[in-house]
């Protein structure tokens, strides 16, 4: 059964697009035929993060309006054979994303893809709603920060009440908490909410923790999803997330801060 997975958060700038790019890539690397869709109409950015910005010709609105066939708008990823990107429109406004049109596109994609990843815009308005409406599963991207946690709670409320699964009385959307931009050192100092705190408040299963890392900027600079980076905590954390999503049991990593002792500092380690 093909799956529609929304990457959502309410709040902007928390790491949805970064996550969509790496998560979709990870799914593809694990052999799933995957497409990642940018729902941020007017503020398209997934193309830059995936490194395919110069190959964008048509976009999701062209497809919804019947101007081109879906196949013409899909861009094949440069790293993975079984990964495609469907860009957002940069010129139209969000209302062009009508729910019926989105539903038709998703149905068509389900005929040939295993995983459909929807990168949601910020907010709880039309664009964000059309990204989440058809979801089977949701990655709720949350930063360890009060406004982000509150917005995630709001999004969970909408998923539970207004998604297609909710209004049709089907099995509820499967929700996963993904904590990103996590800084274990600040958590240890009592300056940042811990993963446990966030989970206790939001009460949904944790699928992973992505540490705050400078390498994310390097990845976006070069248009390579962070999951491809060599020897990077962020890449490994995203691979773990994909593995857990596929059902593997993988222990949590990058959640605790180890004080480097004097001896270790003098005689090795990192």
């Amino acid at each position, binding site marked *: 059964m093909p799956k529609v997975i929304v990457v959502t958060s309410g709040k902007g700038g928390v790491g949805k697009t970064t996550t969509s790019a790496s998560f979709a890539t990870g799914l593809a690397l694990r052999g799933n035929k995957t497409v990642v869709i940018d729902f941020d109409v007017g503020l398209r950015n997934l193309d830059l993060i995936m490194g395919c910005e110069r190959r964008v010709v048509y976009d999701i609105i062209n497809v919804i309006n019947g101007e081109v066939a879906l196949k013409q708008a899909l861009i094949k990823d440069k790293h993975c054979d079984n990964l495609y990107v469907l860009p957002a429109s940069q010129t139209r406004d969000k209302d062009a994303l009508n729910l019926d049109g989105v539903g038709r596109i998703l149905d068509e994609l389900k005929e040939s893809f295993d995983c459909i990843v929807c990168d949601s815009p910020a907010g709880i308005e039309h664009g964000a709603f059309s990204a989440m409406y058809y979801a089977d599963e949701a990655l709720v991207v949350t930063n360890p*920060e*009060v406004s982000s*946690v*509150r917005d995630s*709670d*709001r999004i969970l*409320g909408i998923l539970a*009440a207004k998604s297609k699964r909710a209004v049709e009385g089907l099995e509820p959307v499967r929700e996963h908490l993904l904590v990103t931009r996590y800084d274990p050192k600040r*958590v*240890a*100092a*009592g*300056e*940042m*909410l*811990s993963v446990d*705190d966030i989970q*206790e*408040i939001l009460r949904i299963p944790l699928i992973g923790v992505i540490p705050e890392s400078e390498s994310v900027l390097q990845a976006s600079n070069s248009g390579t999803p962070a999951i491809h980076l060599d020897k990077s905590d962020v890449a490994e954390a995203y691979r773990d997330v994909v593995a857990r999503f596929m059902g593997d049991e993988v222990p949590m990593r990058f959640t605790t801060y180890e004080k480097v002792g004097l001896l270790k500092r003098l005689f090795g380690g990192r």
Partner: protein
Amino acid sequence: MSLIDNLLDYLRGDNKKTAVVAKERLQIILAHERAGRNASSPDYLPALQEELLAVIAKYIHVERDMIKVQLEKHGEYDVLELNIMLPEDKRAGG
């Protein structure tokens, strides 16, 4: 955080770590917001809150956001919870 750190914090008084403050604030506001979006919450709650506020204001000066009325499910019972935060000086008893 070690036991000694905790102990020192405790002895030093109430300078709570900000993460603890953040968690407490979130728990309070989200409980309130969740109650608000719960479709089954009866529509007389806002009116009840207003009327209670009016009565209480006759005796004590309380800000309107210091009173919360919510209905929660506890097993098979519905519990009507009334939460009034009294101003600092009144609570301390002078």
